[in-house]
Structure formats: C-alpha cells, structure tokens
C-alpha cells in the first residue's frame, strides 16, 4: 500500500490575492459557465493562460471567454483533443511550472491530459487546483450530464491488460450524483462485484445525504449492495490523496485475495476524487489488469453549481516515466 497523503495540499483564498507560490508558467483551465471557473482563471498568475473548450458543453461562439488563449477542437475523443491541444500549444511542458484547474474539466479529458503530460512530455510536477461550490443548483437532483450514455469504455490510456479468468472481477465506483451513470457502468461489467467509494466528508454538509439518495437508485438496477459495509468505502470528496491511498489499500487487499482478478475503476464523483484515481493509476497500475472505465454521454451541463466556497491546490509529483515499447 502506498500512502499518498504525504503529498502537499493547501487551501487558497477565495477573496484575497495569492502569493508567489501561486505563479506558474502555464495555467490550463477547461471553460464552463460556473463562476468559480472564471474566478480561478482571473486570480491565477501565469505567463500563459489557456482555455480548453470541450465540445461536450456545446458552447455557442458568443458564450466563449474573451480572456486567455482559447483552444477549441471538435474531437470528443479525449486523446485526440488533448494531442491536438498540445500540438497547437507547441510548448515544452517538461521544463515549465504547470497548473491545471480541474474544476471545469470533464473527467476523461482531465485524466488523459495528466497522463500524457507525465508519460509523454516527461512532466514530473503539476499543481492542480479545484474550487468547491457553495451548492449544486438542484441539490441531489442536479444533472451533470445528459445521462444519454453513448458508450462505456476505458478512458484512453487507462485500459489495462485483461486476465482471462474473470469470475472474481471487481468494479470500484467513485459514486457521484448521476445514478444513471453508475448503473450504466455497473451493467457494463455486470459480472463484477461492485465496491462503491462515497465522498465523505462531502464538499458541503448536505451533499453526502444527497449522494446516498442518488446512489440508492442505482443499487437495484445494477445489483449493487449498498448495505454491505465490505463493499462501501469512504474517501473525502475534496482530497485526491486520501482517495488514492484508499484505492491503493483496496487493490493490495483484492489482489492478495485473487491475483488473477481484473480491477475496473470508475470515477463518477468529484474531480478531486477523479484526480485521486489518476494518481493511483499512474503510480501503481501500469501493465496491470486495472482499467478505468467511464460512461461517455452525448453532452454535459455547462453550469451546475452556484458560488465558490473553497479553493484547493494539490501539488502532485510523479517519477520520471516514459512509455517503453
């Protein structure tokens, strides 16, 4: 088991100016209509500020931001999109101080971007920002995506090997508000035992109950046993490092019980938890029978929250990877 909680996490001020530590060469953000995304983009000090316009939000031209450098591509495939962005940006990321605000990112894009920066560009250190909302617009009824799932597949770059004996496969779901997405993923691997990770403590006090209310809807549809303590775990909704540690501990236990099992992960909760899944995968799962699955929808809601309550900076470090043939 690896303890990722040694990584550095810091709360930044919502109102006051940030210090010298919060200056970067490149600041990358994914545009959406939440005020907290715009707020961070304004506050961040960087030589270059990049807006990534993800096609899933279906923005009209007049909705696009007027500040920063805009990178807009049609491809909805996360690896095509990110590769197009990196080629157009034309920057040597390895030797730069990079910050990514993951608040507005759709998870596959965020996760692929980090993987590519680490394993292809050779980046070893990334600051990641995340801003918590005051509340979600419709509480437990908030829809983050259209829930028209087009396909469930591994996120590009996160497809592990497949052990052929799959009677003891495990699906680990970071359970979020979109219960339909949980159901789609669970049905895709309906032979696997399901383990859910709930965000607790949640971002705001009432969000945990809202989360449970939604997750219960997925239980019957996808044969998930919400009451069994062995299959329901907790990790703070705003802490990627504890999430990664929980995953590391879980993998160690599961693989010890059955080395031939396939592990499927699906981060459907908060972005920090998804970052935790990313850190865990990149650190421990290369060339293993571990895959990260995601239910890809036809569109996403560009605004789901109100206000900004807290801002977090996570400093993530990676060893010097390279993809070997």
């Amino acid at each position: 088991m690896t303890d990722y909680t040694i990584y550095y996490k810091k709360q930044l001020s919502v109102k006051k100016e940030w210090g010298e530590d919060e200056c970067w060469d490149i600041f990358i953000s994914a545009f959406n209509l939440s005020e907290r995304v715009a707020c961070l983009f304004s506050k961040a000090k960087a030589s270059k500020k990049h807006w990534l316009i993800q096609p899933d939000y279906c923005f009209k031209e007049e909705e696009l931001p007027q500040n920063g450098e805009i990178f807009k591509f049609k491809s909805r495939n996360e690896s095509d999109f990110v590769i197009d962005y990196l080629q157009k940006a034309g920057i040597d990321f390895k030797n730069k101080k990079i910050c990514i605000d993951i608040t507005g990112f759709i998870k596959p894009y965020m996760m692929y971007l980090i993987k590519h920066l680490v394993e292809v560009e050779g980046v070893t250190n990334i600051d990641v920002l995340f801003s918590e909302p005051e509340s979600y617009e419709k509480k437990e009824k908030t829809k983050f995506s259209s829930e028209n799932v087009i396909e469930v597949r591994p996120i590009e770059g996160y497809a592990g090997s497949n052990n052929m004996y799959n009677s003891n496969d495990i699906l680990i779901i970071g359970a979020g508000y979109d219960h339909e997405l949980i159901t789609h993923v669970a049905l895709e691997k309906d032979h696997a035992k399901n383990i859910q990770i709930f965000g607790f403590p949640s971002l705001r006090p009432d969000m945990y109950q809202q989360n449970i209310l939604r997750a219960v809807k997925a239980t019957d549809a996808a044969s998930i046993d919400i009451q069994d303590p062995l299959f329901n775990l907790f990790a703070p909704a705003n802490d990627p490092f504890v999430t990664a540690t929980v995953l590391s501990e879980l993998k160690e236990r599961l693989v010890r019980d059955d080395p031939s099992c396939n592990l499927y992960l699906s981060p459907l909760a908060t972005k920090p938890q998804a970052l935790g899944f990313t850190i865990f995968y990149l650190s421990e799962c290369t060339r293993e029978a571990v895959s990260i699955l995601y239910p890809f929808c036809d569109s996403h809601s560009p605004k789901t929250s109100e206000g900004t309550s807290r801002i977090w900076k996570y400093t993530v470090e990676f060893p010097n990877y390279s993809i070997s043939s």
Partner: protein
Amino acid sequence: MKTNPFNITKSNDFSDEQIIDYWVDISGMQSFYNTIKPNSPASMFILGGKGSGKTHLMRYYSFNVRKHTYKNKFISKISQDGYLGIYLRTKGIDSKKFEGKGQEAYAWESIFSYYFDLWVSITLLSTLSEIIEESSKDTIDEEAICIDILSLFDVDLKNEKESIKNINELTNYFVSLQKEIDYISNNCAMTRSIAAIDIKSSPGKLIFGIPIVFTEYIPSFKNILFMHLIDELESFTESQQQYINALVRDRQAPCSFKIGSRLYGIKTKETFSAGEENKEGSEIETVILDRELRENPNYNDFAIRLIANRLENNIPELKDLNEDIKEYLKQSYEEIPKSAHYQKYCEFIWSKYPDPTLRPYWTKLESRLNGYFKGKVDFKLVYKYLSCEEFPLLEKINIFTLYKDFNSIDKVARLTNCCKKIAKECKEYIEKNKKKDRYNDQVNHFAQDMLAQILKDSEHSQRYLGITTFIKMSDGLPRNLLTILKNIHKWTFYNEETPYRGKSISIKTQQDGVLESAEWFFKDARIAGSDGKLIRDSIERLATFFKEVRFSDKPSECSLVAFSVDLTKVSVETERIIDLAEKWSLLINIEGGQYDKNSSRKDAKYQLNPMLAPRWDLPIARRGAISLSHNIVDSIFDTSKTNKFEQLLKDRTKLMFFPFSRSNKSKRKFKNDDSVKRTQKISHKQPDLPGLCSND
C-alpha cells in the same frame, strides 16, 4: 427468515457450482439440450432478451461447470459427452480499446483478430491443461503438443519450442503475447503507433489448429467436438462481429460455435468475404430463446420448478417439500377466491360504499344522464333496472350495455325501455340460461376491463396476484419472474410478513413487488445514446393509448395490450423505433400478424410486454388487438410527429366516451363525469365501431 431466495437474478452472479445447483431443464421434446445441440457441429446463434437464460444455458454446457459433475474422470466423461464446451465472455476483452487513436480501421481489425485468437486459445489451453493435470499425465506428451502448437504460428518460434515444456508454460507464453498487445494498444493513445504489435499467426489458425493437435495426442478426443461458447456478442463492434462471422463461416472440424447475444446485439451478418453473409439454415442456425420459451407448452411447468428449485436451495425447511409444489406455491400467495360473478373480487366495495347507490359508477351515470336529458330522468327507475347490488361486476356490465345502446336513445322513454331490456338480460344471465347472447358475450369479453374500472373508480390498486399471473408476466424471460418474486420477497421484510411459513404473502405485498418490478423492467432498457429516451417515450404513449381505451366508457376492444398496423405505410423512423423496442423486449412481435378486416392484407401485430402492464394498469393477457392507422402509429413512435398524438388519441377514442357522438361539436367532457351538456341531436344509427374483440 431474512434470506431472499430470489436475490440473485443474473447467472453472471452464480459460481460454477451454483450454475448446476440452480439448473432447471424444460421438459418435453424441446429440452435445453435439444435447443443448444452441443453434439451438433453446426454453428448456432442463441439470441434472446435480457434474462432469457442464454448465459445460464451456455455456462451449463461449458467444461468449467460440467467438470463438477465429472467426479475426476474428465477425459472419459468428456468422451462420453461427445463435446468439450469452452465458455468465453466477450465483455472480458474490453474490445473498444481496438479502435481509433489515429489508426486505420483495417489495422485494428488485424490486431483484434489475432488478439481474439489468442484469447480463445488461452481459454482452451487452460481448460486442456486442467484436463491433462487430472488425467494420467505420463501418457500425454505435453512437450510434443507444445511444439506442434507453436508450429501453428507463421513465424519460427525456435526459442519457445526449446524452452516451453508443458501446457502451463505454453499458456503463460500466450498470455504474455496477449498482454503485450494490451499494453501497446493502450499506449497507442499517446504514442499513436501500433507498429510494435507483431502479429504472429493468421486468423483462425490457432483456434482451429489447437483442437486438431490435441485430438492427435489424446485418442479419446478423436470424436470430440470443441464447442466454443462465445457469450455477449453485443459488446463487439460491427467489424469485430464480422470476424466472428468469418470464423463461423470458415469453421473447421472439430470446432463448433455457439454464440450468445441479446436480440439487439447483432450488428452485422457479414463476413470478410466480399461482404457475404452467413445463411440461416446453411452456415448457421438461430434460436431466439425467449420466443422458444414463450411458445413452449411446458413453460409454465418449467417456471414452477424454477421457483421450487430456488426455495429448496435457500430455505432448509423446504428442502424435502413433499406436497405438490404447484399447490404449495398457490397457497403461498394470497389471491381473491373465485366466486360467482366475481362477487368476492368486489367485496371491498361494500366497506368503501356501504350505501350501494353511492358506488362511483352510479354517481357518474346519474350525473351524465341528468345532464344529457336535462334533469328529466328518473334515476331511481334507471337504478332499479340496472342495479344488481350483490354483483358489482354485473352492474358495470349493465351500464356498459346501456352505453353500447346509447346512440339509439334520444328520449327518456327509450332510455327506460333500454334499461328494462338490459335488466331482463342480466336476470337471464344470472339464472344461467346459458344462452349465447350478447350479454353473455359482453361478460366473457369485458369482465376484466370492467373489474379494472371498478378498482380504478374506487381508487383501489389494480390487482396482479398469484404465481400464475407472475409466470404470465415473465412471458418467456425467466429473469422477469425471478425479479418479481425477489421484489415481493423484499416487501415481505418491509411489511413484516414471514413467507413460506404457513401464512401466505398478502395482496398488498404482491402489488408493491409487482409495481416495483414493472418500473424496473421499463427503466432497465438502457439503450445507448438518445434512442433510449425515444423508445421509452414511445412506449409511454402507446401504453397511454391502451389505458385510455381500457378505462373508457365503451372500450372498443377487450383486454387491450396489442395493436396492428400496415408497416408499409409508417415512416422510416417509426419502423426503426418499433424494431428497437422489439429488440429490447418492450414490444413483442406476434407471429402471424393480423389480417385487416377490410382487405386480405396481413398487418404486423405487436403486444406490450406483459411485465410493463402494471405500470399503466393494463391487463397481462392479450385478447384483442386494435387496428391502428399509420398516422396514429407514427404519432406514437416518430418523434417528428408526436405533436399530433394527443389530438389523434382524442379523435380515435371519442366514440368510446359518453355521449359517444360523432359530431365535431360534441366534446368529450365526461371523463371525470362532471355535468353534461347535450350539444347536438343524437344520431339514431348505431356507430360503426370496431366490434367486440377478436380472439386470436
């Protein structure tokens, strides 16, 4: 007792031993053995809706399950069986990683073919390794087998031939080849290259070659069929399915293929040979499992034994159940006892309406007649003739009969005469004169609908009770039956009942469980993309239409859950959505269709899946079917025309609602039976409505 014997509804959740423990065969000529034909070399596609039992069937005939019955005599038992079943679940391959990432489709096709061959080979080698391990190993030259298998590759694997000494090591070598492809394919997202993948064998060579090698070294296997049970084909893309079709077409002895897929899962029948398709009856045989079960006269018996098996396996007290299981199950679920003219069925009405004149259908009728005849009706007289307090059903039938005659009633005097006539018919019916008259017909055909109306008007839940009903609802999909029973059992915990311990499960608990199951079935059709919502919305409209007819004053068809339509006239989109709804088992295509009454044309006929009936208070059993114009059907299924649905529904059903007038001025204001205003002279002519329902 807190165990739910029906908790597991998917065979994927069973261990190999449980597949045997929970196996129930269907009796008669069409047993499952005769369905799957494991000893036949002919390839087969086993299609079916979710929960039809495909996986359970395929796993049952696989070695991994059969070996638990072999009692350590693998080779001789397999030889006796005449086949060796190798089960493979395609979802284990994550086949979507073999596409995109800047590579050409044909490159991925080659890689996928090779990967699939390796995958099947690994499964086969692991199985054979286990068989050899169990047998007397000395007689089998594993090293020679390995060399022969390695010779199947197109490249010279000299080093491997020297180093690999047994099947286990050979299997590990295959696994290493497979993992290398996994790694390079995954990283292609970043490297944009798959050049490092070295395809070492031609398509099919390993799949067909390995069994031949083994039969040469294990004489007992000379006449064995190597049956590849490839399940969940729906998870493969179109081009990947083409490869499977090619394998089927180019099948070589001693291999055979049995391929399982959902109805909607077949994306192509083409092979790689210039787009040629596998021909039904020639290269392949197709079995649609839920249709076979639905049409099997022994399905009922099978379902009973399925339930009994679950109870015996999970409730120790029921292990040696001696009494007739059918009777036992009947007693375990509370039902309304049979009685003359459904008297007991309507018993609740006495407590709800102690004054029989206040039964909701009387107050409605009184209000309507007073409004229509401007207060000139002596309703007490009407009541005197039409009432039959002991038998609420017959009261409803009497009112229904009045409605059927209503267009000939333009005066109060005629109303009174009509009521007198109906009273006479009713009396004769009660006295069981057994005349084949219209009253008799109306009771036979419309009793269920009238009872449903009584329940609805009294704000009482519709009733779907008893094992026979649940089996009918499952309609060839055993998982539906198990889900109903699972949900009912769950509700017994909540309602603090103790099932299968002498006391029967209450009506309320059954109703709760059935409704939950209907909702589950509707939402379980999780179709990719936006089609899911289109299909569910279409089904919603169709069911609304059926419900409107069922609960109208004068339904034109009895027990309506089916419709017929001339498909040549509907829009392309309508046809597409109907096809999808059928493939997702929300609609059932009724074989034989329906002949149009006015011509010799044969129209397509579809029924709403009985599992959905409780969601809209509809009947389970189909009797009649309503013939619909292509306009109405388009407004139900074609999203570009749904704006016309409400109006078309009103137009189609207006003659079923009081005062049943054809006039444009006549508005259907009587739905909740408020005051009535006569807007025009009533026609004397009996309207030309579709007649009483036609039995199929």
